[in-house]
């Protein structure tokens, strides 16, 4: 029933947003029905956010309706006054029905899968749950950071807000909403990518070949949500004892080959050191989370892809942004396809378009800041090239700036309250000086989407005569050349040119060259087709953009907290993820068109066959990973992410439910910091350095599960979000110290003073606190606090209340 309610809520938002999508994206064959949900969530979410920030709406489930009410008003106005919306909706009815059916199918299919692994307990899931709860319960907006009491959240949390909106409207508990939000993102991503890939093909083929559009859509769906790393066949072979060391080494996956005794003795080993006989008891690898390695193939980077994200189940911003990225791509595509010149005067004709673009592209930063620059650059390219088709280059660029400047300005203004409370950790673009990526690793991770994207070349590079082709090839050369020159210039300026050039191995240079070639050829194809066939040019531009992102991560990185030791980890992670999404739209369309255009006279199009076979090989990853993750679907199913807690730690579960139901939204609840202490002989307590990690796991568990604030949750993450400045570090350390002293202090007066300083009114004493603080906590707190909750060995103490109440 919860799943049904959530689905109904999502479909209500989708339905309300349809006219808006039709007015904006009427050029798409489904009139934007495939991406109407993210559009609706952006409008309703932003409306709610601003109403809350300006205190027009107070906290409460029904307050979320105000956001939907604004969406309904906007959409209704569009339907009433935009002449194109209603005809577009009527014309695209089959597309809308397909989007509806696909969303429904994917939503319930994923819900079923997730019910096998419903627990919100692993990796960074508690952090994601924390933000979802913060959006739901925060008494003021911008929402508080439950792991840093008294401070607003400093993260890109718009995705959480959108999912909280659906959770609240559906009236489901957040622990269920978390899992259903994943299903919703999965389904919205699926219907979005199908919509875009099908649109591309529909624009590229005549009406009689229109059936190719759903075929491309299906392939795009598989590529976005089904296909995984090509390391999986090696995993399967290794699990069954087939480890040809030479072959495995050639593909850079030698760590799957069992270690020799000498290697086992070494501290730095690059081989498999786990149990060998038997390595698996089933037809699939049964090694715990073997599929994790499929995203850690390129050393010191993360190369996650969407299937892995949904398999893992972290509700991270980069996952929730998939539908919004697809919406932005849809806007780029329709902008590209348009004919009229876009300059500042266009805003006078269609002011609502500019506003809608600003909302959608501004939202990208707020959902997952990494996406905004890429997609805005792509929009700028689309606008500029659209104008170039009509105007001389200089005038076209000026016109494009005239149209883009107000859009980008408004995109910042609309989300200003967030910008004012967000402290970005990005410390600028730096040239990457390091080993780079091996060709084998690049092949395993990105071979499938890139292989499909280059299928566009046979038909996109087709020219009448050598001169236009040569012109285009010359123009396209700038695309890979400019970043390379910029990289060389920057490393030279730093005086590290020799190190940078020598630091990259020969094979890694080959990878760079390969990426550069793909970027060059696709850019040339785009340039060649720009005035001849704008749809082919768009296809080449999409492929080129995806390849450029991969190429770029070999040359540059965006500095963050990991700058000192694994500098490009996040850059490769986030940008390759974007590349995967963009290539999931372009690749299947390119392959389908290549196959259609292939003939014995023009056999180049048949290159799509190996590309598609490679993509089929990518399906081995989900085939093996799904049974591994779900114990071959033998585990009992749950829809509540905290059901595991109710079963394994009922006292903790009761504690969480009590705090959620019985404490005020703005309560500060003290819980263990995660630092472990041990008692010393002199009666004092010393920090135990062998204790568990401070981040991840139990610390901040109550805050995560209820959205109530605690002075300090995961300190490492707070540093990531708030920066590594001295002030932040000092504040975090001070909070850690104060909370620990409350639990370990002997005196009531000192503890009450500390509680007052931390603005805390509740103190949790549960299993975790008893493990971390070896003191008689009940005797200590019982002497000066009230017991307000007790279940077995778990208690909540409250600071006594004493206040006058005036009645006359």
């Amino acid at each position, binding site marked *: 029933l919860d799943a049904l309610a959530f689905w109904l809520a999502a479909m*209500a938002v989708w339905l309300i947003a349809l006219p808006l999508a039709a007015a904006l994206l009427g050029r798409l064959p489904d009139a934007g029905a495939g991406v109407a949900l993210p559009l609706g969530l952006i409008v309703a979410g932003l409306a709610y956010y601003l*109403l809350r920030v*300006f*205190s*027009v*709406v*107070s*906290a*409460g*489930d*029904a*307050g979320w*309706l*105000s956001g*939907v*009410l604004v969406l*309904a*008003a906007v959409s*209704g*106005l569009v*339907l*009433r006054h935009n002449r194109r919306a209603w005809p577009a909706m009527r014309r695209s009815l089959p597309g809308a029905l397909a989007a509806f059916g696909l969303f429904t199918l994917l939503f319930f299919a994923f819900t079923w899968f997730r019910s096998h692994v419903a627990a919100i307990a692993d990796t960074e899931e508690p952090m994601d749950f924390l933000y979802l709860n913060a959006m739901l319960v925060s008494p003021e907006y911008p929402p508080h950071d439950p792991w840093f009491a008294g401070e607003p959240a400093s993260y890109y949390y718009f995705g959480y807000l959108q999912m909280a909106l659906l959770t609240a*409207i559906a*009236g489901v508990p957040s622990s269920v909403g978390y899992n259903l939000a994943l299903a919703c993102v999965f389904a919205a991503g699926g219907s979005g990518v199908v919509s875009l890939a099908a649109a591309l093909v529909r624009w590229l083929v005549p009406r009689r070949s229109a059936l190719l559009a759903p075929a491309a859509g299906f392939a795009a769906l598989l590529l976005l949500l089904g296909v995984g790393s090509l390391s999986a066949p090696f995993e399967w072979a290794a699990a069954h004892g087939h480890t040809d060391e030479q072959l495995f080494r050639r593909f850079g996956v030698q760590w799957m080959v069992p270690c020799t005794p000498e290697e086992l003795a070494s501290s730095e080993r690059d081989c498999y050191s786990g149990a060998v006989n038997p390595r698996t008891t089933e037809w699939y690898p049964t090694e715990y989370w073997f599929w994790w390695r499929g995203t850690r193939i390129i050393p010191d980077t993360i190369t996650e892809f969407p299937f892995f994200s949904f398999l893992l189940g972290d509700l991270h911003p980069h996952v929730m942004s998939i539908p919004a990225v697809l919406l932005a791509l849809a806007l780029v595509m329709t902008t590209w396809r348009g004919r009229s010149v876009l300059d500042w005067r266009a805003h006078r004709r269609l002011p609502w378009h500019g506003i809608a673009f600003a909302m959608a592209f501004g939202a990208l930063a707020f959902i997952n800041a990494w996406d905004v620059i890429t997609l805005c650059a792509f929009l700028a390219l689309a606008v500029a090239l659209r104008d170039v088709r009509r105007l001389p280059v200089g005038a076209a660029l000026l016109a494009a700036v005239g149209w883009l400047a107000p859009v980008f300005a408004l995109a910042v203004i609309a989300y200003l309250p967030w910008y004012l409370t967000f402290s970005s950790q990005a410390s600028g673009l730096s040239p990457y000086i390091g080993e780079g990526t091996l060709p084998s690793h690049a092949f395993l991770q990105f071979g499938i989407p890139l292989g499909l994207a280059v299928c566009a070349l046979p038909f996109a590079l087709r020219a009448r005569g050598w001169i236009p082709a040569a012109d285009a090839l010359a123009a396209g050369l700038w695309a890979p050349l400019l970043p390379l020159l910029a990289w060389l210039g920057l490393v030279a300026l730093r005086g590290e040119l020799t190190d940078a050039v020598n630091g990259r191995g020969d094979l890694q240079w080959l990878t760079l060259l390969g990426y550069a070639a793909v970027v060059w050829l696709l850019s040339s194809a785009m340039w060649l087709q720009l005035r001849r066939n704008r749809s082919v040019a768009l296809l080449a531009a999409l492929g080129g953009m995806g390849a450029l992102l991969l190429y770029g991560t070999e040359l540059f990185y965006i500095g963050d907290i990991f700058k000192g030791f694994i500098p490009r980890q996040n850059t490769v992670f986030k940008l390759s993820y974007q590349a995967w999404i963009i290539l999931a739209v372009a690749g299947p369309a390119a392959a389908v068109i290549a196959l259609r255009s292939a003939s014995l006279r023009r056999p180049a199009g048949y290159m799509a066959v190996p590309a598609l076979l490679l993509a089929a090989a990518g399906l081995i990853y989900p085939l093996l990973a799904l049974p591994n993750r779900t114990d071959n679907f033998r585990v009992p199913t749950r829809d509540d992410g905290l059901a595991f807690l109710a079963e394994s730690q009922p006292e903790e579960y009761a504690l969480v439910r009590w705090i959620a139901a019985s404490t005020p939204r703005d309560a500060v609840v003290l819980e263990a910091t995660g630092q472990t202490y041990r008692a010393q002989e002199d009666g004092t307590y010393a920090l135990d350095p062998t204790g568990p990690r401070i981040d991840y796991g139990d610390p901040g568990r109550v805050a995560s599960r209820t959205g109530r604030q605690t002075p300090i949750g995961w300190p490492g993450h707070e540093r990531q979000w708030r920066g590594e400045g001295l002030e932040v570090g000092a504040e975090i350390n001070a909070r850690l110290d104060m909370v620990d002293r409350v639990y370990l202090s002997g005196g009531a007066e000192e503890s009450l003073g500390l509680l007052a300083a931390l603005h805390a009114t509740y103190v949790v004493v549960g299993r975790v606190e008893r493990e971390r603080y070896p003191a008689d906590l009940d005797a200590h707190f019982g002497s000066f606090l*009230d017991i307000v909750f007790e279940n077995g060995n778990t208690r909540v103490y*409250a600071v*006594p*209340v*004493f*206040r*006058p*109440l*005036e*009645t*006359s």
Partner: protein
Amino acid sequence: VTEATGAEREPGEPGLSLAGLAWLLAALAFVALRVGAAFTLPVFGMELDHLSGAWQASIGQDDHRYVPTLFQAISAFFLWAGTGELAPRLLAVVVAATMPLCAWFLRRDLGDGGAFLVLLALALDPVSVALTASGNAAAFDLPLALWLYVGLRRRWLARIPVAAAAGLLAASSGPLPLLLLVAALVTARQPQRYWRALAAGGLGAAVALVLASARFGLGFEELVFPPLDILAAGSERRWSTPTAAEVAILYNVPILIAAGLSVAAVLARVVPRPPGMLSAWLAISAGWWVFSIDHHGPLPAAAVALPAALFLGQPAACALASARRVDLRFAAAGLGIMAFFGVILGANIADWARLERPGDGSERALVALLCLGALVGVGLLVWARATAALAVPALMAAIAFLTPGALELATGGAADPLASPFSPVSARDLRDLALESRATTGLEIVVHPDLAEDVTWPFRDSGVLLVASRIPPAAGFVLWPADAPAPEGFVRLEGSWALTRRIRAPTADGLDYLHWLLDRNTLASRPEGIAVYTRPGQ
């Protein structure tokens, strides 16, 4: 009703037609039910919350229950001037008493019969009675929404002063007028033609925003937009014992069914399409009600009942007019059979409901047969193309359903879950005892934090109380949760003490519901028990 316009009367002859008399009676019933409710109902539900907030505001205390709608502000003023709940209630009734006039103005839209049926539905709707005869913050909502609808239909709102006033009033009331205005905005054909009126309305709303943010002179705190504040608070507070879904089942079923049938008739093009604004209003309100089905409060049900009543007016009048044209030679048999079997069936089921258990096998078989018989009657009507004849018994059934609820509220609502939770008279007696104790001993009145909100209304004007989770030494009279351990050094004051009482919703099963429909006195109010402690020897 439409045709009973006094055709026999000579031109110029003074007198009252049958239709006029019916209008007058309905209007009188409308007002009488609300006046009765205002004088007899205990302070309950939303009203209890909001009057408590208004009281605290009137004595200069911050209280989250004070949502600065215009009505709340006036209530606070009345309370400051020393009145009880009666003055705010009478104000609400006076404003609501203009609603029959709205129905009168709607005759052009709905026809005489349609407008009359709307008035009848509004007059007898128990939720409307409860909301327009109590001092809740949204007491102006129903009349204001109806007046706005009339104003929009008759283009009064195109006039700048009217638009400004409408903007001001809508932005300083509850959420119901806002829903209508959103619907009107969305469905307006050429809003740019009325930009002056829109600007004036916006200006009025801005003024309301400033006034509300200044809490109507009680001090600025932050930006406040009362309609959305009440909307949000509706999901947080328990403004009624039944949920919004239960409120609709218990009180609004006939209106909602009739509106549903009207929607079907409109879709089937049997009756003319109503204005798009009304359809959008009904859709938005229904959306809110669906969203709120598990929230405890009457507002969502009231929000949907008002446009539903307007929606059903014209189709229901058409159906009744058709019923008059039915050839009774054929219809009489069907109606007779239906009535015969229906009455026996009703009597049997009523019996089960009274006994609170279904009958044995033979009785069930009999009921099944009676159902079949009643259906045969309906079938005969359909076969004789006299389906419209059903409109008359349907109308009678609707009136029979609505009237007891409305009368129950008008006479005190002693067993009505809509008027629950409520503050009993005994809570005020408890306050007198507490004050007496304080005057005698000089010791403080102490209230547990869990009871601090409940104590506001019955203990108003009682000086300073102490809210404490541990008993302070100066405590003399203690209000404590019944299930909490007794404080040391105190003795329990014998008696059944309560600050609020509740009446459960009779929706445990179908028979429970039927029993309550047949006999409103089946539900007894239960006290939200508290313990009262005093010093020994007091």
